[in-house]
Each structure stands twice: as C-alpha cells, then as structure tokens.
C-alpha cells in the first residue's frame, strides 16, 4: 500500500543526469526527487520545455520508462522519446545538470491481474518504454510475460535487448523487415496468444496499434489494457483537451480525459473507430434536432 504522503503528482525542478541517443530515440534520465516513490507502471510525467520564458507553453507528456528511488544521486525518472518538434528537440538538446521542470507521476497506471496469468506486452516504437517496469511487476506476481515489440524499422525499436531479460519470450517485428518478422506488431499476436494461453494483453503505442491489439485480445477472450497517446495541454486534468470516447459500465459513452481517467484504459471500453469524434449518443452530445 502506498501511504497518503506518497500519492498524487508533485511538481519539482529536475536536473538532467544523462541524455543519450538510442537508435532513433532519446533516453533522458532526470534527477527528480519524490517522483520515483509515487510511480507505478503506466504513469507519465509532464515536462515543461524551453525554460521560464518559453514561447512553448504546453507541457510535453511522456510515459515513464523507469524510476529509481533516492540513492546516491536522489531519485531519478527516465523517459524515452523521439525529437519530433520544437519542444522535444529542446529536451533532446539538454545537457547533464540542466534544469527541467517535472510534474508527475500522472495518470492511472496499468491494472495488474490478481492471479498469476500469462500476459502479452505489446509495444510500438518507443511505446515499449513503460512495458519493462510493468513486466517486472507482473513477474513479481508470478505472471508469465511475453513481449512483442514492433516498429517501422530497426532504429525505431526500443528495448529489444532489455526485453530478453524482462520476458519469457520476445517477438520483434518491423514494417520494412530490417529485423524480426516483417509486418505489424499485432500480426504475430494471435498465434502467440494461443501458444501461451495469454489472458491479458497490455499495449502502448499509436492509436491504430492499440485498436488492433484490443481486437486481437477481445477475439480470443483476453483482457486488454491500453496506454493511449492523446495530445495533452496540461496533463493534470484541468484543460479538457485530451478526451476520447470511452464506454462506461452503464453502457454510456463519455468523453474521458486520457490524462486523469487514463492514459491506461480497458481496451474494449475505448471506441477506437470514433476517436477524434463525438459519437452519436455520447453523454452530453448535441441532440440532432438542435443542430
């Protein structure tokens, strides 16, 4: 049990410990006291970019790859990202000892099975990052862990070597066939699930991949837990920008915030085909007659 004092997010001035290129990605380690103790697999951090007078106001949110509680250097938090825009490029350019403001840990973590069941962990690109800490937690519960990592090409795979230590089996796919099976990360999933009697499919990556992983899981009667990547402005639940349509236990679709009600959702509850829309019948949707 986490105590009351180590729950919920905090805001801290982090300091860059290391910032390394890993294939096409950047692996950033920050000294950020207090984050590690609160973090569970699937949580994320929101980093401010560009300093106190930055023209890029919105925080960038990243799944937490790994945390280490305070030791010689104070607690650390690690993320993996692609430098794709002004904000992520600024992060990629940070040097050891540079300051980065951190808010976290945020969001709901992955739900863990109560029984020691077999699990498949599916990661697309750097979406694999949060799956390693999850694998560790699952192994502590005597769950068998099978990882499937996919990317467009070899340099965009993350953690294929580490996966060998984290999982009982590792399957790698690339779209261009540069390494592993040529195809989508979800292609080998049905056979893998049948072979190992997988009961839970965890996935993290682009929306299309999460939808496909959910489909495969549901077809085989397995649970699915998906960590979504929705554009966020605040990461803490106040701005209402990162919503997606999710069906509740009452059967009603609601626009839920992926930052606080997610980023991990039961895959079969997300209306993947309707992401980016307000599907008809959504709680509070405009009535057709009023249009």
């Amino acid at each position: 049990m986490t105590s009351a004092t180590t729950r919920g997010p905090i805001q801290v001035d982090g300091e860059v410990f290391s910032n390394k290129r890993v294939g096409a990605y950047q692996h950033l380690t920050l000294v950020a006291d207090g984050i590690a103790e609160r973090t569970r697999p699937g949580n994320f951090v929101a980093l401010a970019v560009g300093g106190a007078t930055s023209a890029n106001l919105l925080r960038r949110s990243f799944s937490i790859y790994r945390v280490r509680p305070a030791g010689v250097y104070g607690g650390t938090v690690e993320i993996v990202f692609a430098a794709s825009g002004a904000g992520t490029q600024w992060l990629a350019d940070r040097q050891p000892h540079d300051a980065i403001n951190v808010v976290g840990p945020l969001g709901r973590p992955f739900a863990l099975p109560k029984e020691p069941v077999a699990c498949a962990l599916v990661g697309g690109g750097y979406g694999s990052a949060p799956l390693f800490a999850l694998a560790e937690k699952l192994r502590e519960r005597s769950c068998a862990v099978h990882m499937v990592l996919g990317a467009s090409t070899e340099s965009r795979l993350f953690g294929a070597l580490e996966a060998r230590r984290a999982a009982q089996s590792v399957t790698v796919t690339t779209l261009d066939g540069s390494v592993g099976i040529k195809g989508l990360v979800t292609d080998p999933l049905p056979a893998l699930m049948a072979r190992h009697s997988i009961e839970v499919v965890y996935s993290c990556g682009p929306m299309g991949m999460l939808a496909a992983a959910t489909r495969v899981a549901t077809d085989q009667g397995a649970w699915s837990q998906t960590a979504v990547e929705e554009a966020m402005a605040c990461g803490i639940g106040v701005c209402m920008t990162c919503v997606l349509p999710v069906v509740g236990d009452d059967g009603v679709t609601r626009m839920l915030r992926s930052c606080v009600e997610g980023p991990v959702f039961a895959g079969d509850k997300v209306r993947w085909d309707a992401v980016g829309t307000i599907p008809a019948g959504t709680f509070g949707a405009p009535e057709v007659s009023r249009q």
Partner: protein
Amino acid sequence: MAAGLRPQDVDLTTVLADSRLANPVMTASGCAAAGQELQQFFDVSDLGAVVTKSIMRDVRSGRATPRMAETPSGMLNSIGLQGPGVNAFLARDLPWLLQHDARPIVSIAGSSLGEYAELARRVGNTPGVAAIEVNISCPNVEDRGLVFACHPVQAGRVLSVVRRDTPRGLPVFAKLSPDVTNIVDIARSVVEAGADGLVLINTLLGLNIDFTTMRPKLGGVMGGLSGPAVRPVAVRAVWQVANALPGIPLIGVGGIRTGADALEFLVAGASAVQVGTAIFNDPNAPVRVLSELRTELAAHGFARARDAVGYANRPALEGVMAQ
C-alpha cells in the same frame, strides 16, 4: 508611494463590487476545472477566488478532438464547454470548493436568455457562491447562432436577465470578448443592464493549419487564442474600459504568467486578475503569481494592492510632481 517596503507588509486585499477579497489573484474560467485537480499542487483557499469552468444547464460532451494547438506564446482551444451540467456541479463540485474554504466565482454560460436566467437562479440561490461570472461568448441558438458577446444589445439582454434573477447583493460580472469593433460599447451596455463589474478579456478567435492534412488543425476549426500572446490586447481592453467607465470594477485576464504581468493589469485599471493558460505550463502558477505580485508591489512602492489599481491612468501632472 512608500520606499523600502517589504513584500510581507503589502496589503493585498481588494474590493470588487462591495465584496472584499483577501487578494486579487483568481483562476481563469476553463483553466482550473472546479479546483480539485489544482488542490494537489496548492491550497485553493490561498487565492482571492476560484473561477470555475463555465457551467451550462445540461451535461455537455464538448467538441471533437483535436481540441488544442500550441501557438507562439499561446494556444488555441476548441473544447466546446464540455461539462457536467448545473445539477452535477451544484451537487458535487461547489460543495467541494466550499469544504476547502475556496471563494467560488461560478462562471455560467447559456445558449438562450432562458438558460442564463435559470442558471442565475440555481447558482445564485446556492449558499457560498462569492459571485457569478457570465460567459457571454456563446452562440445564441434563438438568434441564428450569433454570439451574445459580439452585440451590445444581446450582451445587455443576457446581463439584464442574469442580474434580475440573481439575489441582490451577489455580484454579477460579465466576461467580454475582445473580438468586437468597440469593447467600450459592449462594456457600457452590460453595465447599464446591471453588471456589477467586468472581466476582460475572453479568448480571441484564431485558426491554424495542420500541414499533414492541409486542413484546420482544430476539430472545431476555429478556436480561442489565449496565453501571453494576447496579453497586450487584454491590457489595452482594461485600459480603454477603465478610462471610459471609471468606478466600474474590472478583473483583468489574458496571458498572465508572472507577478509583473499581474501588476501590469492592476496599474492599467484592474482591481483583480485571473491566471489561466499559464496553469497548463505551471500548475502552481496562480500562487506563484500571487507571491511575485506581492514582491512587485513592494518593489514599486505600493503599500496596498488597491493603490496600484489604475495608477497608469493618473493625470500626467501628478506623475511629474511625484518625481
């Protein structure tokens, strides 16, 4: 102005339409939900007031995503007023604010005069509400979807029904849009209709293009521009209205990120300020701005926040004599 002031000696109390606030810093509507999320970072009772996200009569899903886009020193949003509706707000969110000793200013938004009136009655008759802020930047479904805020007569009608149906003694503030030919005309109209004060400004309408689709980036096509990019527009609006309608309490909002930004609004004529988009960058922004404002007031020799209000509007001669 006093020299050698210490920040802790500055009197931050401010008066807005007969109601006294411990300090002039509030959250801006739509940037703080109903306070709960921010309580994780600071005590919401430390603020002069918490302005809620606009409450509508019915539950509302809001618009399709993408709902936001970062722009230079700002952002566009097209949330579409997603919210739980007034019943859930009064049952769940308002009691939470009161239990946490916050002073709630409840923002209301409607799509017809009847809806505004109903909200004014429901919210206004609930104990603990410190004031009502009227968001008039909504389309009027009874008038071809024209936005109330853009028309002096329509804006005045909203304020007149809200004032009529809000208990006497509870201040009603109108939040104005800067997307008008002359904001002073709108200000005058809503004040004549009974507004006790004005909140300046709401977002500016903007649009940007997504180069991957070569279409507007926002699901709502156009969105509201906020953040430091709009601050000079907001300060200008405060200045203009302060000069045209002296004595009407003004609340300045638009791009406040630091205590110096807040001071700029005070000396331009605002009695209080709201911190909005900066919260997305720094969840502690409202209390940080408050603490920085205290320091700024002391550094500029203002012993009371009230003394700074409208200071930039003083007659030129007084400025010369003070040298």
